[in-house]
Structure formats: C-alpha cells, structure tokens
C-alpha cells in the first residue's frame, strides 16, 4: 500500500495508526528497559545531587546532509548542551512533529541514526511523542535531556581576566554544509555534527579546571563569546589569524559574503581555562576525537567598554558584535 510509505494525518490520531508507527519504528529502534514500559512517563533512578536539564528543537532542511541528519543533530545538540554544563548525559526525550507526506523510510533512517548516536553516547531515549500536522513532508524534532553532574558545574560567571579561550576545531562547517545543499553548490564540506563527550571527559580526567564551556551553535562564535563576556563581565580579545577555518569553508563563505564567525557549528565547543592550563588543555583536545584542529584563539581581559574585540590580520582592531538581523533559515 502506498499508504504505508507516507505519513498521513491518521498517524497522529493517537489511535491504531499511531500505535503501529510507534511499534514499527520508535519501539523497534529505541528499545530499552525504561521506554519499553510504554507508560505516560519514564521512571528513572537518580542518585542525589545535581542534574543538568535542557531542551532544543531541530528544524533543519535538508534533513539528510553530508556528515549527519536531523536525528543525529537532535541527539548531539542536546547532549552537548548538557556536556558544556559539566554534566554526564544520561537520558533523552524525543518529540517528533511530522508533516503529512513525510516519507516513512526517511523517518526510519532518522530514527536509526538517533538510536545509534544515543547508543554511542551512552544515553537512553526514555520518553517520546509523535504528532502529525498538515504540510508537505517535513519533520521537526525536539529533544530534551538529563545529565548527572558529578563535580563542580561549569559556569560562564567563573571566567576571569587572564583566562585563555580554546576553540575545539574549525568553524562554519555545519552551516556551510547545509547552505551548500540549499544553494546547489557542490563541495565536500561535511557537517561537524558530533557529540563531544570523549573530549570533555579527557579534560576532566586530566584535572584541567574548566572555567566555562559552550557549544558554538546558532549565532556562531561571535554570539557565544559575546554572551560569555557579558555574563562574566570581561572583555574577550580574539586574534583573527588564530581562528581555524577550513579553506573550502572559507571560499564557500567568500562566495556568499558570509562570515565564519557568525556561522553555526554542531560539534564545536569553546573552552575557558586559566592561562597556565591552556597549552595542556589544547593538547588534550587536539588528541581527542573531533579536536584535531583546536586552537587557542583569544584571551580574557578586564572589562573594557565592549565585550569582544578582534585584532585583525593586518593589525587593525575592531569590535565583534553578536549576529545581527536574519540568519539563514533552518540550519539546526
């Protein structure tokens, strides 16, 4: 039956078609002791202490891209948000909003990818929901996540003058990858979409005191650094030449007049450590998965009247503001 290959409104009815979809796809790939109970809420055993809790929705098009898909993105994005608070991600919830006409085989691929990413990251998907809306075959995914905090949580307010800023890799790859699809520019740029658990774990194991950490997503490095400078009341001084950008991405940006500092990444963090720890932290990151191109890109100083400054390639100085105006749509 053609019916079985596309999502129709019936799949969102809450009745038998919804049940079948849940059994054939979600239940099949996401199975674990908690989810399998199929109750209205998952019941979890939590040791006393602090937990981290976050949510994000993912609306990217195309839904499949070089280096990932919307499902992998939805898992990694939320896990990284937990990670950068110093938490060990444990549990995920997933909410699907499917547009009528969504290809069910595509949905299956996405679900497989989520299951695989969750498994590799050591987290369980314990709660889920599916709704169907009218539309033209799109998919939107919300994930929320819970992580356990086993040590002092990272907080942007810990950042102090003298600290060094490390970025874990080259900038703009995810954004450039997504836009390449959309604008029909052929290249081999791959999204950096990844869960960075190993990298952060390695830093913690090496007793690096992480002052603050952020994943560099929507709004780009410029936006993240501005937020941290504001919340720690410092000024961050960026060295333009030190910022890693892949040549293919650089050229891609030039074609469209884009700036990698404002572009979204999905597997990059900035990490604030003391000047003393900087080189050691850098080398740990460089030796971790997804960290080869890491670099020290900035230092923190006493608050001047602006949040973030850049020393340019030719020695000029300028302010780096947050992303202004319209970003390009649906990158995450």
């Amino acid at each position: 039956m053609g019916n079985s290959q596309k999502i129709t409104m019936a799949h969102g009815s809450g009745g038998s078609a919804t049940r079948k979809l849940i059994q054939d796809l979600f239940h099949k790939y996401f199975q674990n002791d908690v989810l399998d109970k199929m109750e209205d809420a998952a019941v979890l055993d939590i040791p006393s202490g602090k937990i981290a809790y976050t949510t994000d929705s993912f609306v990217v098009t195309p839904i499949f891209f070089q280096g990932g898909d919307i499902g992998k993105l939805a898992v990694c994005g939320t896990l990284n948000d937990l990670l950068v608070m110093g938490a060990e991600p444990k549990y995920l919830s997933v909410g699907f909003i499917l547009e009528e006409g969504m290809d069910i085989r595509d949905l299956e691929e996405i679900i497989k990818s989520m299951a695989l990413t969750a498994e590799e990251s050591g987290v369980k998907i314990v709660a889920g929901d599916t709704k169907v809306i009218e539309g033209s075959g799109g998919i939107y995914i919300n994930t929320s996540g819970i992580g356990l905090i086993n040590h002092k949580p990272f907080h942007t307010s810990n950042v102090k003058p003298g600290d060094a800023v490390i970025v874990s890799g080259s900038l703009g790859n995810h954004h450039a990858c997504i836009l390449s699809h959309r604008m029909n520019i052929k290249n081999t740029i791959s999204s950096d979409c990844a869960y960075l658990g190993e990298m952060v774990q390695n830093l913690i194991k090496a007793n690096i005191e992480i002052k603050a950490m952020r994943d560099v997503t929507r709004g780009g490095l410029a936006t993240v650094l501005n937020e941290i400078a504001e919340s720690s009341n410092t000024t961050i001084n960026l060295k333009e030449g030190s910022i890693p950008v892949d040549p293919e991405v650089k050229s891609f940006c030039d074609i469209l007049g884009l700036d990698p500092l404002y572009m979204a990444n999905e597997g990059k963090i900035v990490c604030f450590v003391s000047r003393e720890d900087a080189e050691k932290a850098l080398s740990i990151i460089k030796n971790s998965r997804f960290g080869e191109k890491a670099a020290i890109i900035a230092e923190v100083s006493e608050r001047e009247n602006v949040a973030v400054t850049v020393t340019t390639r030719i020695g000029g100085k300028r302010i780096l503001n947050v992303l202004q105006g319209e970003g390009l749509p649906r990158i995450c």
Partner: protein
Amino acid sequence: MINLEEIKSFLLDYSGPEIKLMEVCGTHTSTIVKSGIRSLLSKNIKLVSGPGCPVCVTGSRYIDEAVNFALSKDYTVLSFGDLLRVPGNEMSLSEAKALGGSVEIIYSPMEAAEKAINNPEKNFVLAAVGFETTIPAYALLLDNLIELKISNVKLLTSLKSIGPALDWLCENESDIDGFIAPGHVTSVTGASVYRHLAEKYRKPFTVAGFEAEHILVAIYDLVMQIANGRYEVHNLYKSIVSDKGNEKAMEIIGKYFELSSSYWRGIGIIDCSGYTVRENYRHYRIEIPVREEEISNKSKGCRCGEVITGKIEPYECTLFGKGCTPANPVGPCMVSQEGTCGIYYSMYG
C-alpha cells in the same frame, strides 16, 4: 400493547424458520453494531448489510479522477472526510494529499460556495457522492452558485438512487427475506417508493429510525410480517418519514439532476440508478464516462461487492483484519464510518 422487554425476549427466543434481513443503511449498521443488537437476537435471525453506504458503492475510477484533480496544480478537491482514504487504482485522496495534492475536507456541500468566493483564484472540484438524503444539498449548492454567479466550482458526481439498487438486490439475492429501509433516505423519497418492490418481489419493507429501539421494533415487525406471509411497507419512523416524502426536496433534485445509469462497486452498472447534473447546468459538471470496472490491483481479494449485497459478512473475507484494516484499508467498506467492514472491525476487532 407490546413493550420493549417482550420484543427483546421474543427476538432472543425466536425458534422459527431462519430469517435473513438486510439493513440497507450504513447508519443502521452502525446502530446495530454499537448497541450490540446481534447479541440480542436468536441465531435464527440473521442481519446482513446492504449497499447503503455511498462511499462503499463508489467505483475506483471515480477516486482516480478525484486524485488526478487533487494532484493537478490547477484544482483543489473538496470532499467529505469519509471519502479520503478510499483506495483508487493508484492511490487514495489521502495519499494524494500526503504527496502534496490539494484536498480540503468539507462537512456540508454548501461550504463550497463560501470557499469559492473567498478564493477566486482557485478552481474547486467537489467530490459529490451520496443518496437522495444528500443530493438536495448539492442542488441547493447549485442554486447558490447560480444566484451568486460563482463559476470556480464544479461537481464530480457519483450520486446514487437507493430504489434501483434494492430492485437489483430483490432480483438477484432472493434469500433476503425482508428489508429494514433507510430512515433518512426515505424521509426524502417517501415510504411509498418501496410499495412497488414489496409487491413485485413479495418482500416486506420496514422504515426504521436510528435508535436501538427503532431497530428492534423494525426487526420484530419484519419477523412478524414474514411469519404471517405479509409483504407490506411499514413506516415505523413516523416523526420524520411520510408516505410521499419531501416533495420540495425531490423537486429541486429534479431541477438540477437527471437519472442516469450508474456503476455500483460490487454490483455493476444499473440503469437509472444514478443522478448527473442536467445538460443545461453542464458548466458545473465534470464528465466521467460510466464504465464497468475490473476489481483494481489495489483491492485484489476484496469482497466488498459481496458484503454490500449481503452475500457475506465481513469476517468471511480472508483479508478482514489482516491485510485490510481501517488504517490500511483494501476496500471502501473498510474505510467509511458507514462501511460494513470498518464498523465490524472497530466493534469486533
């Protein structure tokens, strides 16, 4: 005067000759199943369902036509919700919609006029199915379209008349002993339309309402008529149904529509059993040729035709509940809220 309890015990204890009654109307089927009426009857009284669900008797080619309009960028199809999941030869309207086709659900044909006024740049095709109960609504719509000079709505019709179908059944399915006549259709046509059939085929017709009590009383009446060798037309839905029906409604049907031969799924072409828009209003009609249809590939193995004609009950179809469920219907009888297979599936699983 006999009361409900007495009727119930009579029907449960009935041990006379086996009797087979047909409820023609899908809404009757629904009441019967929802109220668990079968559990209240002796096994010597058998109820079978008839061709009284307009969706179920519609041919797959008709769906194909509607699907084509939905998929074409130039048209939007307006349809009752029930029709959406009926499989055509390629796909259903619901699948066409999922593929980006434009289909909007309506609840009354008269909504079409409003939609047409509010969206003058669009062209609407109204998937017009139904029996005499519903046809006056299409006629009133045409009245409205003409009055307001609306020209961006056309009717794709598969409109049926219940009388000729019953005639065909009496002719071809001689083991049906009596008919529970459809209350609402009869309110338009009048109970007198069955008199000629009753006499010609010597079968009783009882017009019934839609409460469980109506059905029980009608069954009792039919059993008694049969037991007594009578074949009369009884009207047991007096609050609505009269002998001559709603003459104004029949008149407006006649103004805009004319009888024509029509294809019934599971039966074939029956002369003068359908209605099409009259020639002088052809601007509002989409022509589709009346043709005999093969069972489509999409519904291979479907025995809807036999279900509709009371030859089998749904669970006698091997696909019932296996290849064919309301979520993935093979035949139209599984789709519609009035389709016998669908009703049976949701009540008996």
